[in-house]
């Protein structure tokens, strides 16, 4: 079932409104599917993800959740209740522990998810800056998973990780789509990651093309 949809979406940067980054894109994203969006640097991948996340709004067209334009209930509502974002640089709150970062999005969050992701008990109560990069990324993904939202959006989630850790993360994302029925959309350069996705798009010449 379509959960997120781009309807004739166009976007240009504020300082160069004549030059569109995205031009009249229409695409639908389904529940339970793991998507990868490939593209070269500057092709507009992160901009596209920002529009899907409700961090920005298109100059033309609509971004729809469950068939309804995001504007109707508001972008903040979309960010709070409908999506989770995973960034390449983790973006954890640096004065909190892993558990507290999880509780930012869900007060009922259980530590088991962090233990399942390979963190030790003592790691749960340390400052996140004391964790390794791989551990921090696993905390960031755990935060996205405990948020109890139907969509996970990730921007280069494995960009800073070694191959083994990256494979573990990809597996978690796959399971979120296939076992929990979430719509997972990952923006990446990595062809290795894209190869694990159910559907791969490529952003090329301001259009989103299915591969």
């Amino acid at each position, binding site marked *: 079932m379509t959960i997120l949809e781009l309807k004739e979406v166009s976007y240009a940067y504020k300082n160069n409104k004549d030059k569109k980054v995205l031009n009249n894109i229409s695409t639908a994203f389904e529940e339970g599917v793991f998507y990868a969006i490939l593209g070269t640097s500057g092709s507009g991948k992160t901009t596209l993800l*920002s529009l899907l*996340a409700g*961090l*920005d709004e298109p100059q033309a067209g609509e971004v729809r959740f469950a068939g309804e334009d995001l504007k109707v209930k508001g*972008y*903040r*509502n*979309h*960010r*709070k*209740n409908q999506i989770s*974002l995973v*960034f390449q*640089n983790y*973006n*954890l*709150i*640096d*004065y*909190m522990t892993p558990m*507290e970062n999880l*509780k*930012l*999005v869900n*007060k009922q969050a259980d530590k088991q998810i962090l233990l399942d992701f390979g963190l030790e008990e003592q790691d749960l109560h340390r*400052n996140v800056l004391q964790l390794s990069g791989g551990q921090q990324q696993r905390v960031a993904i755990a935060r996205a998973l405990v948020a109890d939202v139907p969509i996970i959006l990730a921007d280069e989630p494995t960009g800073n990780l070694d191959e083994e850790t990256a494979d573990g993360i990809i597996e978690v994302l796959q399971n979120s789509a296939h076992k929990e029925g979430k719509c997972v959309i990952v923006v990446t350069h990595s062809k290795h990651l894209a190869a694990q996705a159910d559907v791969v798009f490529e952003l090329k010449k301001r259009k989103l093309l299915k591969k």
Partner: protein
Amino acid sequence: MSVITRAWYYVTRKKSKSLLMFLILFGIATATISGMAIKKATVDAREQINQSINASFQVENNLQNNMGIGNRGFGNVPASAVDQIKNIDGITEYNARITGEADLVDLKKVKLINPRIQHNDSLMKGYENFTDLSGMTDSSLDNKFISGVIELAKGRHINKEDTQKVLVHEEFAKLNHLKLNDKIYVQASPFASMPASENASKDEIGLEIVGMFSGSNMDRATMESELVENAFITDIETIKMLNGYEDEELLYQDAKFYVNDPKELWRILEKVNELPIDWTNYQVVESASDYPALTGSLDSMDGLINKMLIGIVVISAIILSLVLAFWINGRIHETGVLLSLGVSKINIIAQYVAELLAIAVVSFGLSYFSGQAIAQNIGDSMVQQAGEVGTANFQQGHGGMQFGADADSSTVTKTLDSIDVSITLAEMGYVWLIGGLIILLSVSISSIFIIRLKPKEILSKMS
């Protein structure tokens, strides 16, 4: 996670940043509470002075038409005028003064060290024992005591029932080995400027010491007789004996009258002016003008403290806004993350305010103690500065005229010499109010860029 929880985590875990903010808020609070306490102390001092000087008036010679009597131009306010005025309804107390001149018998005067002007000692020959005696009906109402130029240190004041009683300075008593209830002796002086009547006592007159006062000259004295240490305050009967006056021919230097209620002063003054007294030769002076330098120094103090408070608030707001701007700008990453998690901008700014308020609770609380420690010192320093300004303004207003250094002149040039600074709950309340407003203002100014930007713009800044 609630705003309060996030704020608490930040404050307790970002210790160096919280400490910096604590020090800034502590400084602001200490400065504000000190300013408020000094302001209150100044207001209290003014009220206290107003209570004593606004409820009185003085009758004295009108120097334009009446230069007084004797070579020294003593006042000649008739006793009959004083009697008429003191009986007006609403007047509660009065102090009539008369100056007498006498020679001290077997007594040493306190020596003048470092006089303002060096005299030729030979010119003063014969005057070694000469002194003025200030006779009065109630010394507790005398300007010298009210203004604090001198203070009663031992014994009691002179009152109108007294005969042959005297108040002397502690230093004079020490020099002459005198104690309370001892007697000193004076006699009519051949150097007196006022010729004594035939009835004047030819004998030595014994005066019992009923009180001793302390205090020193406000300015450097020119002559020994100007020293407060050589002042003598006695009763009216003693002056009458020395000069041989009868009751009906008694002429006062001046008389000061106190009214029950300062608001009634105008009504009473109207009645005074209606009395059959020769108002071309005499005049009524409101006592508010008795202490020009004192009120001038209070005005200067008011000005200084108001400038200080405005300065504190403005500078505090600027410093706090700048520091917060850097602080909030340094938290762009955190702001972006929270926005991406669906936390609202208002909620994020509320967290900043909550953090500052948490730090403010401690810093404002501790400022009570730091304020106690420094406010009195700052107040004393401001009093000194205000006194200098008040005196300078007063002298400038009198064409740079140099006033005498004797005890009576000292009441004219007396400035505020101290204030009692204390910090109460009211000042703490003001600190919270002002500090809270500065925090809200500073956070609002510093948060403008968060309000202005879209989440994506913040996130792009953070990456």
